[in-house]
Every structure is written in C-alpha cells, then in structure tokens.
C-alpha cells in the first residue's frame, strides 16, 4: 500500500515537475495491405491504419483522466513503406499521403515509417524510394521518415550516406518557408530499432506483431527535482537517486502501456526508458547535467555526467518494466531542450561536444540547425561519423539535422510545439567530399563476428 506522502509526491511530479507519458505509439503492420497497384495499396493502407488505431486518441484521453498523468502525444508507426511499395517505388508518395491523411483523420500527432532499411546496400526500389522523401515530407504534415544506413552487423552503406546528405538538403530546401521543417521530420540511423515509439525515427519492424503498443515515458524535470534534494551528495548517491526516480517514472509508463494495449486490442510491446526533454522550462536534460555540477552544458565533464545519468536511468527503468526497448537513453535534441538552446546561443556547446555525448547516450546529433550553405557532402560526413560511433559501440545513433536555407550562424530556426527552436550552430568548413564520393561500404567491425 502507498502512503500519503507517495500520493502527494506523485501529484507534485505532475503539477510542478512535468511528469508525463510522452507518447503512446501504436505500431501497425502494413504487410497485409500490399496490392497490385499503388492506388489500391494506398487505399488499403489508409483503411487499415484508421481501423486499427481508431480508438487511440480516446484511449489516451481516458487513461490520462483516470490516472491523472498527462499523455502528451498519440502516434502511429508502420512497416517501412519502401517494403510496401517495392513493386512501384516511384509511386510511394501516394502511400505517404494516405498515411498522412490517416493521421489527420485519427487526430494523432505524428505517424512514422516512411522509411527504408539499407544498412548493407541499397536496392533499386529503395534508391527511388529514398529520393521521394523530400517531396513527400514537404507535401505532408504529420508523416515522418527515416533511413537506416548502417549496423554493427553489416557495416555502413556509404552510398546511402551520400544520398542522405542530399536528401536532408532538399527536404530543407522544399520547406524553407517553414524554416526547413521537412528535415526535422527525417532521421538517418545506424542500428535502428524496430520498436521505437519516438519520432521522427519510429517504424514498425517486420519482426513485430500485427498491432503493438509502445510507450515512451518522460520526466527530466522529475529527475532534476530529485537531485535538487541532495545538492552535496557524492556521485554514487546521485546515481542511486536517479535510479529510484527512473523506477517510479517507468512504473507509470508500464501501467499505461499495459492498459492501453488491452483497450486497443493490441499487444503490449515495450516501454522506452528515454528521458525526453521539451522546450518548457524545468523539463530539460541539459539542466540535469548542470544540476550535477557543470556550469553550462557543453563544458568539460558533460560527457561523464551524461554517462552516469543515462546508465542510472536504465538501471532504474529495467527493474520497473517487464519489457524495455526502443531507444532507452537520455535524448539531447538541441531545439527541444531549453538548457541546450541557451548553451548553443552562448556558444558553450558545439557539434563536436554533442558528437562526443552521443557516445554515451541515445541518440545522436538531434534537432540541430546548421548554416544553409553547408555542402551535402559535409552533412553526409556528419552522418558517417555518427553511424561509425553506433556501429563500433553496438548502439543506435542518428542524425536529424536542419540546414537552415538562407540563414547562418547567429540566426535561429523555429518550429513551435515540441520541436522548439534552434540557434544555428557552426560546422567545420574543411572539405570532406572526397571521403563521401568514394562510395562503397565501411566494413562491419571485427567484434561483430560473434557466431
């Protein structure tokens, strides 16, 4: 049984510390929708998604009301669309638009899965599919796209890395009147996971059931508040405090996930343990690191503090949930975290430091605005660097970067809502094009041969 203090603590977490369930994401297999023509397939896709997820918004509202914990986003992820449209790849946008229409009909926030998995090499239909991504993202609102360009097991597909640099540029160019939001809905992955509930990189893996409910919890504010209670504790005690807090947050996620799956007639998939910030004051991962003792995030010691935080969140969370998955690590998106935004404005955090931080947490160079005149090959080189970190370290890494068309360092881009705003950060001006234009594959590392 719980005590009165437990009750008041939970309420304070919601009222003052921004505890929320960040997302209920329903994964839906589109494989049964494949038909002879793109038009018919698109129709089937729309009908299936609308049918399977028809109660997701109501269920989230009911659960939020019953448990007294806000559920911020309702989302759907689907089978990578490149597989569904392999017979008519140039018509993939029809399916993309059908999915976006389904998202609007359902009233959900995002739908992910306009995706291709090309970590070993790129099939002809996938090459055509990937080239449709910028146009589709420009013409849709809630659809998100991702491409897996590498994995520990297969190495890095450098042809896809090169292509993705161009795709990011074009996605930003086609949506320049909205600060390049097309690029903010696109992720390049290494070691992409099949049960990720978070956007923009969510898709529903082919190894999954028909319909699955995955839940992403949040609560950077709760962790920060817990650390404020022990301002002079040593780091062993700091780690313990984070574990205890992560346990409570995750238990809330587990409860909501199981109940949501039951009501939506879907399988309970996983709880994703990621700490996801929002641009709201007091809901920042950067401010946790600062609370631990770094004046401004980006300073020396940031990577160590983040490593401790990330590991402690997992240890607390794993104990609290029967099935953990997704990305499960602290997120460090620049535009979505008020502490990161301030540090970037001051020049305290750089792309190099962010890259170092991604070695010890999920997920990567996330929601970072860079000058619009950055060459595509430089963006590809950034993707290659991140993919290399993921490949060598057996972890998921990603790049979601926004080339701000017509803008430079000192200016910012703004998307509003959860996507926030990002000061444009400087990139290295050295030319990396020769490396990228070589093509080929970066072979899988020796430690991937485990059989």
């Amino acid at each position, binding site marked *: *049984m*719980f*005590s*009165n203090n*437990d*009750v*008041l*603590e*939970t*309420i304070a977490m919601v*009222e003052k510390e921004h505890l929320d369930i960040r997302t209920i994401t329903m994964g839906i297999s589109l494989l049964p929708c494949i038909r002879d023509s793109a038009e018919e397939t698109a129709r089937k896709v729309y009908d299936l998604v609308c049918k399977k997820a028809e109660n997701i918004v109501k269920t989230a*509202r*009911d*659960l*939020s*009301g*019953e*448990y*007294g*914990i806000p559920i911020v986003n309702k989302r759907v992820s689907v089978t990578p669309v490149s597989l569904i449209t392999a017979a008519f790849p140039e018509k993939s946008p029809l399916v993309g638009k059908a999915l976006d229409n389904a998202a609007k009909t359902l009233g959900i926030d995002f739908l992910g899965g306009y995706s291709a998995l090309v970590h070993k090499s790129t099939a002809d239909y996938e090459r055509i599919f990937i080239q449709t991504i910028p146009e589709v993202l420009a013409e849709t609102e809630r659809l998100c796209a991702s491409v897996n360009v590498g994995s520990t097991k297969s190495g890095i597909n450098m042809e896809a890395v090169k292509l993705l640099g161009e795709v990011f540029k074009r996605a930003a160019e086609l949506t320049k009147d909205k600060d390049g939001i097309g690029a903010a809905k696109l992720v390049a992955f290494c070691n992409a996971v099949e049960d990720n509930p978070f956007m923009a990189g969510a898709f529903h893996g082919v190894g999954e059931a028909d319909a699955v409910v995955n839940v992403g919890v949040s609560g950077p504010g709760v962790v920060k508040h817990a650390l404020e209670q022990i301002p002079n504790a040593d780091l062993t005690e700091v780690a313990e405090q984070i574990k205890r807090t992560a346990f*409570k947050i995750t*238990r*809330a996620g*587990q*409860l909501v996930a199981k109940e949501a799956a039951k009501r939506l007639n879907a399988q309970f998939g996983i709880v994703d343990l990621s700490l996801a910030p929002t641009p709201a004051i007091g809901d920042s991962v950067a401010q946790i690191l600062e609370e631990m003792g770094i004046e401004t995030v980006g300073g020396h010691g940031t990577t160590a503090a983040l490593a401790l935080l990330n590991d402690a969140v997992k240890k607390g969370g794993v*104990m609290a949930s029967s099935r953990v998955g997704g990305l499960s690590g602290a997120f460090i998106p620049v535009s979505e975290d008020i502490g990161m935004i301030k540090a970037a404005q001051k020049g305290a955090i750089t792309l190099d430091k962010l890259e170092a931080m991604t070695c010890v947490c999920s997920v990567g160079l996330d929601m970072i605005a860079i000058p619009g005149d950055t060459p595509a090959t430089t963006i590809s080189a950034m993707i290659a660097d991140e993919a290399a970190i993921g490949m060598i370290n057996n972890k998921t890494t990603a790049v979601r970067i926004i080339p701000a068309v017509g803008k430079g360092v000192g200016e910012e881009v703004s998307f509003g809502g959860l996507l926030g705003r990002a000061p444009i950060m400087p990139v290295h001006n050295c030319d990396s094009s020769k490396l990228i234009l070589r093509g080929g594959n970066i072979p899988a590392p020796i430690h991937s041969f485990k059989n």
Partner: protein
Amino acid sequence: MRAVVTVTGKDRTGIIAKVSNFLWEKGANIEDISQTILGEYFAMIMIVDISGANTELAQLAAECSEMGKQIGMSIYMQHEDIFNAMHNV
C-alpha cells in the same frame, strides 16, 4: 474499483462537507480519510470506492477538479493503481 481523491489548498471551512457531499451525489463510497493541516495549508487524502458510481472515472475526475476550482482547492481523483505501481516494488 478504488480511486484516491487528493484535496490541497488554503484551509477554510466546509471543505470536507463540500467534497464528501459531491462524492455522495456521484455514488462514490468513502472508505478512508486522512487529513493534515500545516499552518494555513490543508491536505486531505481519501480512498473511495467508485464501483457504484454513476459516471466513468475519467469524467468523474474531471468533474472533481472542476468542483475544486469552484471552492478554490486543487482536487485530483486518480485510480489507485497509479500509486501502487509507482511506489511499490
């Protein structure tokens, strides 16, 4: 099904009367009440059985919070499972 009703705010007369009357009207049975007053701050936690209630929990919780606003108190009604989940191993 049991829910936890939490009432917090500045102390004044008639809070318990107002809340318990509201719960009675809705068909909720109060099983336990504990209450503390710290200075001017009032905090009350009730365990209520809502199996016989004539309204769904989510709706009842919303009405409860609304009634709280009318009397200047912060009121939450939540399914007890959330506390069992978060505070028990």
